């Protein structure tokens, strides 16, 4: 089990590295973003919910996971190899976490959340491996979840507008890949999605700028990192 999960993790990390390299080499000039706190992010989607499983196999409501903190949420699956898909979210989160760890405004307010789109293959032991590798070494928490089934996850995907389909080859056989449009969601402490990033807009700078804006709007936001 460990070896299988380990391969999954190293594959995703490798793909994340590729994504980072490609993005870095092909990067557009950093957008001229407004100063944090000088603009207001729209309330795009109301609070969403579903029952998830954390790395210990404990049941957690997503609403409780997101409550009180500024949450950056991405959906992923462990076998994703598209560098402009899950690995891009992964590399972006790594950079965001490194920056946020050094930022007093975000250090105790920002939480990163990865939720698997693939509960059948991304089992609790797989998620535990990811959690052990990424979740404990920094002040900004990065927590990983799966779900008991696709049905358990569905309400969250539907509420967030995150469509998923199984990829098939020309013969109609499933390839194992999951077709999904990469979206990262920035969620306020009340559960509202306040920004959504797709490939053309997903940069660490953009996400950090918006997270700082929310931190100024919600000075009492608490990721729980103070208690760790």
């Amino acid at each position, binding site marked *: 089990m460990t070896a299988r999960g380990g391969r999954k993790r190293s594959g995703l990390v490798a793909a*994340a590295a*590729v994504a980072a390299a490609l993005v870095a080499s092909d990067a557009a000039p950093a957008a*001229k973003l407004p100063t944090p706190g000088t*603009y207001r992010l729209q309330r795009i989607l109301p609070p969403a919910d579903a029952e998830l499983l954390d790395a210990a196999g404990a049941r957690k409501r997503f609403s409780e996971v997101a409550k009180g903190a500024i949450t950056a949420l991405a959906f992923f699956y462990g076998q994703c190899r598209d560098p402009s898909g899950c690995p891009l979210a992964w590399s972006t989160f790594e950079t965001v976490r490194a920056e946020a760890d050094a930022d007093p405004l975000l250090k105790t307010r920002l939480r990163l959340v990865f939720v698997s789109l693939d509960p059948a293959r991304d089992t609790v032991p797989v998620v535990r491996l990811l959690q052990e590798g990424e979740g404990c070494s920094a002040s900004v928490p990065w927590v990983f979840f799966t779900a008991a089934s696709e049905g358990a996850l569905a309400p969250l995907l539907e509420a967030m507008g995150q469509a998923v389909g199984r990829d098939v080859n020309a013969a109609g056989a499933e390839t194992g890949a999951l077709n999904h449009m990469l979206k990262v969601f920035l969620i306020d402490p009340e559960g509202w999605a306040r920004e959504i990033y797709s*490939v053309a807009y997903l940069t660490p700078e953009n996400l950090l*700028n918006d997270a700082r804006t929310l931190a100024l709007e919600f000075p009492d936001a608490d990721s729980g990192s103070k208690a760790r």
Partner: protein
Amino acid sequence: MTSRANLGRAPRRALAAILSGAAAIAGAALADETCNSPFMSGLIKGQEQYLHVWTLGENGVGDESDKLVTIDVIPGSKTYGKVIHTISVGGRGEAHHMGFTDDRKHLWAGRLDDNKIFIFDVGSDPSTPKLVKTIDDLAEKTGYVGPHTFYALPGRMLVQALSNKKDHGGVTGLVTFNNAGEVISTTPMPLENGGDGYGYDIAINPGENLLLTSAFTGWTNYMMDVGQLLQDSTAMKNFGATMVIWDLKAMKPEQVFAVPGAPLEIRWALTPGADWAITATALTSKLYLVKQDAQKEWRAKAVADIGDPAAIPLPVDISIAADARSLWVNTFSDGTTRLFDLSDPEAPKQIYSKKIGAQVNMVSQSWDGKRVYYTSSLLANWDKKGADNEQFLKGYAWDGRELHETFAVDFHKEGLGRAHHMKFTAGAPKADAK
């Protein structure tokens, strides 16, 4: 500055293997067919399969209702160039423009008169669009009327209105919906610092965090008979004469440019690093370039005439090539399409023209530029009368020197109505197609 992820953890062999297959995917994600939002997925770089035409119902033609018409454009298909599906939405409300959601699963289509917005499911089976939602309270909820441009943002739809419910003039605003069709914000067009408050098109450059808007006219004018309008000197003063550059993230206008004569469609150059946009003015028949000057200040300047401006050819839709080296420009009055060489965007040159019909409005080209499609209707009360009121969709092949007609659909003979905006689909799009 922000640092990138730690590459050192990636096993070298896995990295090399993935790199070999990844490079082709990466750079393609920032644009779609040349006029669509850069936030859209599902880029059709190959052969489009279906072409959807948002069609105005017309008195005495078929069921007289506005409708979404789907044409098979798959080469070799038994129904190539034929209407394979129509869905009438009921009534006539000045059907006009459409736009896909970010995931390309839904197509929003607006009506300028009764302000209804129809949302079609084109993801489940694009050969058979299904109406899944109608928004009929835009004016009540926002104060704006005339939903014109539909421009995808991640998880949202940004809609440019043309008018307002108070006086039906040109002062208007932008409305942001979430993809479920709920209004989440309104933004007035600027009236300060030279702004005239008018709106028309939307074009976003995400790398620069910039939104560009243009300006047309209000409900009173676009619903007026064009012959009457041209004789009304007061009404003719009520056309937009500005473009606005916005901070996209903050949705705040940053600069207003004087662009006389109703600047319409805006196209950003899609080539990496080419941070300029181009538009055409309807009443003054000029191409305007929006670009930074040597001091890095954004400017808008006229760079070419379109035909003979004194003859009022009435430039309407434009379509930029994916490599930003050429631009199709339609002129409604003479029914002509014109190709401009944009290799020097500061000095576009017309290099080709062809008469498409008695009138022509919209133009859409495939990503590779080899197929170009035209439709005829501008506005119900601005279209030509009598025999000149030709209503068609025509498909052409472009070989680099000449347009060759490949099919034509007569929208009157087919009992459809006035053919307006076009959008492509291709098979059942994957949710994550880049």
